[in-house]
């Protein structure tokens, strides 16, 4: 190619007519849709719930056998459970735990996912090997892998987060790799390579920016499924220890009394479903806004 | 063999896509008729409304966006303008067959050729699969597909483009329709195959006694195959008449432009082919003047003020051009026009 690097630079620094960022504009437009606003407000409500739990509600752990399975009262808005604990206080603290897991898993699956995905997309041989391992990881049902990891490691919040993050990584790797591969096909990347742009610069200037939007969307979905997974694990008794209140744990506790006290299950179940629902809807909105080809939810 | 029986009559067909600000007028009072056994060619650039007109007649346009009005659309003695979708479904594939530009994508990739032809017979004749297969076999033979019995079990991807277009033709004609609408049937094919397909259509029209509406942008195809031609521009028919008449005496600025952009047969053309400057306008409402005027070399001030009404030039030839006399004077020495005289 006859174009030199300096010419390219010259062109790049030429005055460009004022142009607004299309991604930003798409996001702004999505932000004005009623469903986006409703879901964002609900999500903010959950954040407030988590942050203000100690102020709003009483002690979620205080056991009071004399006040078992009581109906709602001023002391306990949503009544008490089989150990006389304040259901409202436990539910508020459950939001804290669910959000912590959701956000942590989103970050902990995104960072290694992006790193491995870029490697797999940039390096032909290494990529092929990595993808074999990823395929194999995806052959193990995610929840099962998380259950096994959670059961085998020391119980605790960190373990739970790690156990849920690990099965999420392969999806992120696949997504990032496919983005890298398609970006590498683009003519402008070809041009950059042909004028001698090095590997690192190629990644930081051209590839990384293109992965941001899909990774954010995928991380949102990962957060939603992590919240479900943590509830499943707690429900099955391999989640956090009893001194960390969780919605899944509350539902597991409520099982025995379910036929007579269904509300014990309804409160955590409804909160859990609502949080996951708004997260998923926001993920869909983001996906529609950020990707013109309507990136399909990659299971 | 030509009789005066009219197979298809269309009067004052107008079509608008969408409403309000984004509205697009695709057709403005289009009238045409197709007589039994004849090939009528609709000619024009892409976007001029020739395909849309046929899709509108068949009720193939999405109702939500396509707003159609017409004083009369008639197939034989049947009224199509007021027909229900149900009634139109009985017409499509049965009394009117249709083939499309791209045989590569117009056949369903997951069904066999035999299935796709057979289901038309079953839909309209209510026969058994066995009989439908027989009929499909007969049609494949008729469109000269070699080894038709084996081809019935083939999938479209196993056939060449020309073969696929033959299959499309077999599918369109299997119920022996009165009318075949061929929408750019040869555009996507190799030049040698183009001629074969046109010859096949011409021959089948005689054998089956049907009429053909041939949609094309290629005047060469018109010259070779059609009996009559209707030239369309921006949703209006600007000139129509028997092929000989139109080629001998082109009488619209747009027809003249089309002719000049055609390489003349058997001659090494001098200089470069001429193109018509500009492109077909996309109009929210039909133009209140000659829509071609902005691109026309002959246009006078009247052309930019008024819509020209059809003027009869005799022997069924009419034009919507104020300047048709000067158009003809200019083109009298054109090699194609001379060749037709």
């Amino acid at each position, binding site marked *: 190619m006859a174009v030199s690097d300096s010419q390219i630079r010259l062109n790049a620094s030429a005055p460009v007519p004022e142009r607004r960022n299309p991604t930003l504009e798409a996001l702004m437009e999505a932000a004005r849709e009623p469903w986006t606003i409703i879901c964002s407000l609900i999500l903010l409500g959950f954040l407030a719930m988590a942050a203000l739990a100690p102020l709003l509600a009483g002690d979620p752990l205080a056991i009071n056998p004399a006040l078992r399975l009581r109906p709602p009262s001023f002391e306990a808005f949503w009544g008490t459970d089989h150990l006389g604990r304040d259901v409202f206080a436990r539910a508020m603290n459950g939001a804290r735990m669910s959000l912590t897991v959701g956000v942590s898993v989103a970050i902990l699956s995104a960072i290694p996912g992006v790193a491995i995905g870029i490697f797999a997309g940039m390096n032909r041989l290494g990529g092929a090997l990595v993808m074999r*391992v990823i395929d194999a990881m995806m052959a193990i049902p995610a929840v099962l892998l998380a259950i096994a990891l959670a059961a085998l490691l020391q119980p605790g919040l960190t373990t739970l987060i790690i156990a849920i993050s690990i099965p999420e990584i392969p999806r992120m790797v696949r997504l990032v790799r496919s983005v890298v591969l398609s970006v590498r096909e683009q003519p402008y990347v070809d041009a950059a390579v042909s004028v001698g742009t090095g590997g690192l610069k190629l990644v930081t200037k051209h590839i990384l920016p293109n992965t941001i939007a899909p990774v954010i969307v995928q991380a949102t979905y990962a957060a939603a499924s992590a919240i479900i997974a943590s509830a499943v694990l707690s429900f099955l008794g391999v989640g956090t220890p009893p001194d960390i209140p969780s919605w899944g744990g509350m*539902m597991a506790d409520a099982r025995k009394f379910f036929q007579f006290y269904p509300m014990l299950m309804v409160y955590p179940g409804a909160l859990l479903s609502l949080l996951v629902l708004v997260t998923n809807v926001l993920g869909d909105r983001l996906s529609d806004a950020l990707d013109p080809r*309507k990136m399909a939810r990659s299971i | 063999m030509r009789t005066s029986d009219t197979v298809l009559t269309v009067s004052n067909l107008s079509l608008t896509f969408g409403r309000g600000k984004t509205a697009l007028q695709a057709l403005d009072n289009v009238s045409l008729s197709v007589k039994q056994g004849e090939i009528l060619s609709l000619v024009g650039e892409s976007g001029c409304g020739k395909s849309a007109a046929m899709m509108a007649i068949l009720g*193939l346009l999405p109702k939500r966006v396509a707003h159609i009005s017409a004083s009369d659309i008639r197939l034989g003695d049947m009224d199509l303008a007021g027909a229900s979708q149900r009634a139109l479904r009985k017409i499509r594939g049965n009394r009117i067959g249709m083939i499309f530009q791209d045989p590569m994508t117009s056949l369903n990739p997951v069904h066999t050729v035999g299935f796709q032809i057979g*289901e038309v017979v079953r839909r*309209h004749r209510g026969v058994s699969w066995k009989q439908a297969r027989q009929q499909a076999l007969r049609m494949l033979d008729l469109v000269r597909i070699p080894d038709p019995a084996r081809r019935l079990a083939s999938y479209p991807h196993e056939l060449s483009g020309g073969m696929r277009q033959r299959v499309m033709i077999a599918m369109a004609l299997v119920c022996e329709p009165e009318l075949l609408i061929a929408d750019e049937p040869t555009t996507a094919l190799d030049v040698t195959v183009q001629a074969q397909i046109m010859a096949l259509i011409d021959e089948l029209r005689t054998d089956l006694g049907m009429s053909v509406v041939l949609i094309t942008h290629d005047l060469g195809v018109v010259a070779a195959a059609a009996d009559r031609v209707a030239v369309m521009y921006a949703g209006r028919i600007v000139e129509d008449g028997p092929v000989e008449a139109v080629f001998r005496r082109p009488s619209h600025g747009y027809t003249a432009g089309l002719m000049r952009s055609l390489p003349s047969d058997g001659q090494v053309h001098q200089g470069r082919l001429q193109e018509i400057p500009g492109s077909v306008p996309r109009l929210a409402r039909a133009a209140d003047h000659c829509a071609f005027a902005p691109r026309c070399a002959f246009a006078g001030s009247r052309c930019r003020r008024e819509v020209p009404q059809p003027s009869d030039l005799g022997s069924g030839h009419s034009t919507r051009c104020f300047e048709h006399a000067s158009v003809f004077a200019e083109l009298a020495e054109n090699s194609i026009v001379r060749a037709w005289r």
Partner: protein
Amino acid sequence: MIRYAAARILAGIPTLLLVSVFIFSLAHITPGDPAILLAGDNATPSQVAEIRTRLHLDLPLVQQFGLWLGDALRLDLGKSIYSGKPVTQLIAQRVEPTLVLSFVTLVLTVLVAVPLGAVSAWKANSIIDRISMGIAVAGFSIPVFVIAYLLVYFFAVKLRLFPVQGYKWLADGWMATLNSVTLPAIALAFVFSALIARVTRASVLEALGENYIRTAHAKGLGAPRILFVHALRSVGVPVITVIGIGFATLIGGVVVTESVFNIPGIGRLTVDAVTRRDYPVIQGVILFFSVALIFINLLVDLSYAYIDPRIRG
């Protein structure tokens, strides 16, 4: 066709090998001595030593893996710490409820989700479309055990149409079996359908814009035939693919659902093994489910050739 099948099967082998490496190494990523872990919580030091020798834990890891894999290939997955029974036998005893539940769920899902997705695409942006896609988003947002308890509360506790929990074996009559798996299958299908309905809708919507759909209209075919015979059939590949991928989610759901409905299947076995930290059983069931998943995806790959003639070639 045979070559295609052989290629697919061969491609599954390295995956299976890697899966077994993961499952094998699960025992070694845990903190502490795997022998102590495998011996269970109440083992004496001599029992631990015995296990260490019996399971070759004193050998190098690679050699251990070789021996473990050799045993696994002979369907010997060790013995349960809790009951002392062979893991293979435990799994075999519990296959039926899981298979029945998965099969009923799959049938239910395909019967509901595929037509729903196709009709939503046909009537894109209509009320029907909006409602069914709204339900679909809810479907993969509401955890399966929440749906399960809702169903139990209304259909078992209040209306008494179905049993609250339990499983009736096929040997005792298939009607009773079907009755006992109806609620769990509906709960599972709700989640599974959400995914498949969405993918079906997106694929059909794309297919409806294809030229061959215009041809089908021009042939005078009716809406149901165009939608189901022409559009849906041609999107078989993406839909089947997502059914295959969705099985991973479904297996997770089976584990939870069996636990909720107290169905003595492999999911229930998994949960029991996890709470008892019965390590050989955990390894065994994960291996079982992974092999099942690989097998299902092999079937999916093979079905492509049936659905799409272009792949056969």
